[in-house]
């Protein structure tokens, strides 16, 4: 077990150093495995996390979220999560609350070794993705929300130590009012995203869980494939809607999560992530070259 873990960990860092890019998406990535052990005597949990990240150009991020999960019974649970983000770079520093994610999860009675679950929910933005500094419009990289109401849906499969998630993130209502023009900004580092409209994403994630024999420690290396289904668009200075070439396509992220489980049922997790494949252009600002985060979950 120890040797297997060390091999996985070594491979991860080799890839990480060779391709120092990073985990990208704020929304769809957060649809998690639905088979995390639920202590039958504790039907509630609160999780809070802080994540550091490095984005395009000189943008650095500090993100946070607070989530609450309620297990109603063996089959049904619900989760609410509020996110926030602070971005700092040549435009200055800008932070704000981002979105609230509301999801419900259903776990049918398991038959055999295969355990399925189904998750659906909404992402609701707290702002219209037009945060400014000193009245200057900011690129999407500095926005705490994508400015869309999204439908989230996922199918999750657990088989022995493997977890697989297939998910969609579908923008349903666009309230994005971003007004950033590259030509008026003084830098060519970010593309114009005036009145930005984004296309859906689909996700496939595979996670392998390694538990130590005393089950205190767990390690979860996972690969995350995200396909952006089409070119995003914006309105140019003449009021004409334009497609952003290269904004569609595949992102592949590698992620490693290490967790420690306390006897009380609480747990702490540390994660690092980086992308191995990225889209040619990422106007939505989901450009993390790497992320490193810590989360703490309290069960009660």
């Amino acid at each position: 077990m120890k040797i297997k873990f060390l091999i996985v960990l070594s491979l991860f860092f080799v890839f990480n150093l060779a391709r120092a890019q990073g985990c990208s998406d704020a929304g769809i990535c957060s649809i998690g495995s639905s088979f995390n052990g639920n202590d039958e005597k504790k039907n509630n949990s609160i999780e809070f996390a802080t994540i550091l990240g490095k984005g395009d150009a000189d943008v650095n991020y500090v993100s946070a979220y607070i989530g609450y999960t309620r297990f109603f019974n063996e089959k049904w649970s619900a989760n609410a999560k509020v996110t926030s983000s602070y971005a700092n770079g040549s435009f200055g520093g800008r932070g704000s609350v981002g979105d609230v994610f509301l999801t419900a999860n259903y776990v049918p009675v398991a038959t055999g070794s295969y355990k399925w679950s189904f998750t659906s929910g909404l992402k609701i933005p707290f702002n219209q993705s037009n945060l400014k500094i000193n009245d200057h419009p900011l690129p999407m990289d500095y926005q705490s929300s994508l400015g869309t109401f999204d439908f989230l849906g996922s199918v999750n499969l657990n088989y022995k130590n493997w977890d697989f998630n297939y998910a969609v993130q579908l923008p349903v209502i666009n309230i994005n009012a971003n007004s950033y023009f590259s030509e008026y900004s003084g830098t060519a580092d970010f593309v114009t995203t005036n009145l930005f409209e984004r296309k859906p994403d689909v996700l496939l994630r595979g996670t392998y869980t390694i538990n130590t024999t005393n089950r205190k420690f767990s390690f979860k290396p996972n690969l995350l494939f995200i396909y952006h289904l089409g070119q995003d668009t914006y309105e140019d200075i003449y009021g004409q809607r334009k497609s952003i070439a290269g904004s569609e396509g595949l992102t592949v992220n590698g992620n490693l999560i290490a967790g420690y489980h306390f006897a009380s049922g609480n747990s702490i997790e540390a994660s690092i992530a980086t992308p191995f494949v990225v889209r040619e252009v990422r106007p939505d600002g989901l450009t993390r070259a790497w992320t490193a985060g810590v989360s703490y979950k309290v069960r009660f």
Partner: protein
Amino acid sequence: MRTIFTFITILMLFGCESEGELTREKIGAMVVSSEATLLFSGTFEPEGGNKVTGTAHIYKEGDSYKLSLKDFSISSGPDLKVYLSKTNRPESFVNLGSLGSGSSQSYTVPEGVSFATYPYVLIHCQQFNHLFASAALKSN
């Protein structure tokens, strides 16, 4: 643990901002050279129940054109933009970017824009698609 939780919650609920090198200068703070040639002028008229005062001027400075607002003030709006427009409605226009906050502001006009085609200056709230003011440009 409760302290940490409370601290993070407070951090999440309140936004913050600080200027950087690309946002330090106020929008519209650019100065038009005293040697620039005045080509067109117009007086702002209010639209949609808003208040506005001031004039709009087009200058030729070297090979470029500048729009200058003088003695300017307007009702506050959430996301006001400066347009050069074909008519006094925001239907076919050139977006010059966000409106600044001073009584004297200047904006660079993109290359290739004809003032015979775009003879109006509009102040328009892009976020809620609401016109605040217009000025018809006349040759000096």
